[in-house]
């Protein structure tokens, strides 16, 4: 009798404990977020390190409840986040293996980051296969959400189409006398997509301009552009478009400036923001400069509480003003907080995805509307300005800054970017 009673009591206790611990999930005290970024290689200095700094700064502030309102609630759905910092270098194959490792062996809760379009392109289907909540922070190719619908993958900044449509619109508005254009872009998805979108937009909105038939596509990280600069100098085009970034951009600016390229032709650099603080006096005046959206030098003086917190805190910690990648990674971390706050720190990947899909939120420097790609791709404004060295302040500034709303420079949801541009950008609200 006693033995039967004891057995039943143990059984009931066991079932109760399972129900309490496993059957009803408890809110977590901590979560782990993997943050891949370029920590080695040519992209580390201008992109990867500022990006990682931005992610760390925002995560620390969230963990300590120090972000300005409305994000001053402590933690990610109350949980404190620890970051796993990863190097994004080594190519897409290595990144796919690393991604699987993060999900299957290290059991991370979320993955937030990635700069390279090639990596994002390769990882999107893997994230879907593994059903892992993932936020791409900086990579630009529009193909990620245009080639297939995604359920677990998000991108919290605009894609390359907006950079190049906005560039063409800025040229039309500020330099209507441009007669022809050429370009120098890296020979991979990013460079090719960027040139394609700029070229197609120019054909639509400035049909009287002539595109050069000798546009340059050097290999990424080539570093030497002597022949390309000569070819562009001899070209009749009076505008040079480039989506170069990082060390390639800086080398091109050095070599081009030494040869008077930017005195002879109007330079349009869509990712110039990363060079603006670093090159100082060596950045030529008069370049049309973008920062892949409303980030970095273009928004340094925006006086919203969130932006001033971001600029001042970053400057205090790292000693320089934040460039675009710092903003973009900070923004992606903020999106993760929004998802966790809504779904709870114990939320499944599916619940986190449901929480972020289609939301609109105020980020540090702009409003982010997750309204493209079925609610997975952000739409933000995009802008350009003209470089000028401020000798009194001892730093570069941008003048004539103009922002174009997201509905002006990005296609409506479900419409392919190329089709949208070729169709005369129907529905664009500028």
């Amino acid at each position, binding site marked *: 009798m006693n033995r039967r009673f004891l057995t039943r009591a143990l059984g009931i206790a066991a079932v109760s404990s399972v129900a309490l611990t496993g059957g009803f999930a408890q809110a977590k005290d901590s979560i782990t977020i993997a943050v891949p970024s370029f920590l080695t290689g040519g992209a580390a200095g201008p992109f990867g390190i500022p990006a990682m700094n931005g992610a760390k700064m925002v995560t620390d502030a969230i963990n300590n409840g120090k972000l300005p309102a409305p994000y001053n609630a402590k933690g990610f759905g109350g949980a404190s986040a620890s970051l796993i910092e990863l190097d994004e270098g080594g190519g897409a194959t290595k990144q796919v293996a690393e991604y699987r490792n993060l999900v299957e062996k290290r059991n991370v809760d979320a993955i937030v980051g990635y700069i390279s379009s090639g990596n994002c392109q390769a990882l999107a289907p893997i994230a879907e296969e593994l059903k892992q909540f993932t936020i791409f922070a900086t990579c630009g190719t529009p193909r990620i959400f245009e080639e297939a619908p995604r359920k677990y993958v998000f991108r919290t900044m605009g894609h390359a189409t907006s950079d190049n449509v906005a560039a063409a619109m800025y040229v039309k508005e500020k330099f209507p006398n441009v007669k022809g254009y050429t370009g120098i872009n890296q020979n991979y998805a990013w460079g090719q997509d960027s040139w394609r979108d700029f070229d197609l937009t120019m054909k639509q909105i400035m049909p009287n301009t002539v595109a050069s038939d000798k546009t340059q596509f050097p290999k990424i990280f080539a570093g030497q552009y*002597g022949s390309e600069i000569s070819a562009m100098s001899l070209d009749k085009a009076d505008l040079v478009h480039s989506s170069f970034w990082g060390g390639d951009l*800086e080398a091109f600016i*050095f070599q081009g400036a030494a040869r008077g390229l930017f005195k002879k032709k109007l330079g349009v650099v869509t990712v110039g923001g990363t060079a603006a603080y670093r090159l100082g006096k060596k950045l030529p005046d008069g370049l049309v400069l973008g920062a892949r959206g409303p980030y970095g030098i273009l928004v340094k003086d925006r006086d919203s509480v969130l932006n001033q917190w971001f600029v001042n805190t970053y400057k205090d910690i790292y000693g320089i003003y934040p460039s675009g990648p710092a903003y973009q990674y900070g923004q992606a971390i903020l999106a993760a907080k929004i998802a966790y706050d809504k779904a709870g720190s114990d939320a499944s990947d599916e619940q986190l995805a449901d929480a972020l899909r289609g939301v609109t939120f105020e980020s540090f420097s702009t409003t982010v509307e997750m309204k493209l790609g079925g609610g997975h791709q952000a739409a933000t404004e995009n802008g350009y300005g003209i470089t000028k060295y401020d000798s009194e302040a001892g730093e570069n500034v941008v003048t004539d800054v103009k922002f174009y709303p997201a509905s002006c420079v990005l296609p409506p949801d479900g419409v392919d970017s190329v089709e949208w541009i070729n169709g005369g950008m129907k529905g664009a609200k500028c």
Partner: protein
Amino acid sequence: METFLTILLDGLQFSSYLFIVSAGLTIIFGVMKILNVCHGSFYAWGAYTSAFFIGKFSEMGLPDGLGFVVIVASAIIVGLVLGFLIEQLILKHMYHRDEVLIVLATFGLFLVLEDVILIAFGTDPYFAYQPMALLDSVEMGGIVRDVYGLTLIGVAALVAAGCWFLLNKTKWGTILKAVIFDREMGISMGINVPFVYTLTFIGGAILGGLGGAYIAPTISVAPGLGTEVIVLSFAVVVVGGMGSIMGAAIGSVIIGLLRALAVHELPQVELFVVFAVMAVVLVFRPEGLFAPAKPRKI
């Protein structure tokens, strides 16, 4: 005519850059039979050392002209220190091993040295524009050219002339040719081959370092810059013939001129043309255009 002159100058400028780096690679292979992958590291270390000190001297208010002394000194320091250490501590103990193993060892060294650069110099790029700015620019063939870039052609010519003089007009050249021709016979004739190897490796490293140090003022010196150059250098050395200085010179000129022609006339094939040349040479003359003659051993 303007376009022709521009292509010629662009081609020669790029050839000069290729030759300075690949000359060191081919000398090391010719004498030591080592396919030295870590040659890219000599280039990177030369660039970093030069950029670092040019920047420092500029901050100290020293004359920009000192940058040229820094460039030469950086190449020599990098070659002497890295070349000596690598040869003495690692390669010296591997000469009797299979050549493939030595290639793997130099590849491992390349990866290690890339990471040491990150530790020593950090991830932020270095700018050393002062020497380029000092020499200003000049108009040639209807376009502006930076004089610094043009001086690269002169530096390459000096390196080529120096190598020719060393090999053909000095006792050291005779010794080197003897070792290249037949190592064992050289030893039996009393040549201190290990010493020749050490000096050769240091010399090759200095040339690799010189390439990086001289290019530094025109680029953003950032991590990973040694990777690209080693691929191009291998293409040059394969085209010209491994171990041949003349081959490296001709290979550089062929690749440089064809690349410049492609950039100006058909930019879509710019990447293709370098390796197409290599493929064609490998099909019709696998040993390269100017591979040194090999003795027939009986």
